[in-house]
């Protein structure tokens, strides 16, 4: 356990523990030098302040041994820190052979995950506990960066090649994922959640998509609205973000570019989710919304439509 826990997030993996030991080491080393320098400074200022008395000021200009000492001791310390830091870095970069590979696609402003069995999710990554995970990442637009603070891991996601990030989760529960490479207006909304689950729970999730058969559709829709990042662009209180608000959307007549007025019904909503740029509402940008084809199961699309219906 890190000795300086309040500053750092929980330790989600063994790598995180290793990093924290180094963090703590540097922290206490820094405290030592800070006290040495600033403490010395304050002592000197207090002791040798000019109080108007006549005093001979001794003029000395160098002290060889002292100068060598304060060059060599820090040098040795930083060499130690370098090797330490490099060692834990390079260990974390090597993915074990039995890693579960998940493909990550970053786009403005969401994370898409694709699992070995072809399941795809948006802004939520489910992994079984204790199994090494290797993320193979690419971006379709600008540079993003995948940041998992609890694993102390971060890697830029580039538009022209694959980068990888490896971690072995050991703490069950929710972990925050951030984008840390500035990518535009939605940068700070480009969040995702990592769910570390038991092997059994993970298997069940893969099969059901995480929703109970008994949950009412509109409730699932409300969940999906947040989880699948609809919330980034569509408000539910009538205010305008990037796209039209969902409030009172169902049954409303919208002006469609090139088509004229169209009434919003189940089919229109379904088409807008699967093929968003087919019918764009007048005054809103075209091409901004990515397709959700393959990202949402049929039942989930139904759930979203039901949810929108409830927003009067």
């Amino acid at each position, binding site marked *: 356990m890190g000795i300086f826990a309040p500053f750092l997030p929980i330790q989600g993996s063994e790598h995180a523990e290793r990093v924290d030991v180094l963090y703590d080491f540097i922290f206490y080393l820094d405290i030592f030098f800070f006290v040495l320098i600033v403490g010395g400074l304050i002592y000197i200022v207090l002791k040798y302040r000019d109080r108007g008395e006549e005093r001979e000021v001794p003029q000395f200009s160098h002290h060889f041994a002292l100068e060598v000492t304060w060059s060599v001791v820090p040098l040795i310390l930083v060499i130690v820190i370098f090797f330490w830091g490099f060692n834990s870095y390079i260990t974390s970069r090597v993915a074990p052979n039995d890693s579960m*590979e998940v*493909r990550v696609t970053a786009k403005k402003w969401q994370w898409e995950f694709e699992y070995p069995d072809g399941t795809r999710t948006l802004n939520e990554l489910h992994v079984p506990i204790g199994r090494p995970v290797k993320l*193979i990442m690419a971006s*379709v637009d600008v540079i993003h960066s995948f940041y998992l603070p609890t694993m102390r891991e971060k890697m830029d996601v*580039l538009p022209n*090649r*694959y*980068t990888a990030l490896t971690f072995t989760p050991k703490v069950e529960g929710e972990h925050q994922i951030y984008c840390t490479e500035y990518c535009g207006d939605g940068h700070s909304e480009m969040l995702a959640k990592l769910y570390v689950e038991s092997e059994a729970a993970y298997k069940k999730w893969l099969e059901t998509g995480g929703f109970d058969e008994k949950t009412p559709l509109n409730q699932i829709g409300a969940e999906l609205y947040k989880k699948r990042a609809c919330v980034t662009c569509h408000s539910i209180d009538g205010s305008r973000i990037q796209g039209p608000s969902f409030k009172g959307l169902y049954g409303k007549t919208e002006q469609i570019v090139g088509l004229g007025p169209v009434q919003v019904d189940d089919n229109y909503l379904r088409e807008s989710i699967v093929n968003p740029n087919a019918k764009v509402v007048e005054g809103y940008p075209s091409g901004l919304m990515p397709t959700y084809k*393959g990202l949402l199961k049929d039942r989930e699309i139904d759930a979203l439509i039901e949810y929108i219906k409830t927003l009067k």
Partner: protein
Amino acid sequence: MSEHRHHIMPVKGYLAVWAGLVVLTAVTVWVSYFNFGMLNVAVAIIVATIKAALVCLYFMHLKYDTLFNRVILLSTIVFVALFMGFTFIDINSRVKVEPSQFSDNSPLPLPAKFRGEEGKKEAGAVKN
């Protein structure tokens, strides 16, 4: 002091340097018809550097100039070398991450015209 400062080269000297540059231009064009494989670039750069050295030393009088002006030129070369050297350390040692078993319909980040670039590049390297 003045003697040293105002070193005046004879006209013959300038003409000799000029002739040297013309001959080296001919050489660099001539060798470009041969294929030395990987060494192509090296040969071209070496010949160009000899030419550059001639220009610097004689036309630009660096041979007779102050130490500091020579230091400026040398450090320029050092900084250019650092800039290029460190960048190439990265470019040449990047580990490629293979996308392994993923389905084809997942969006590949490169546009269509650049797909299969890797294969072509390898072929090019062999020919080179």
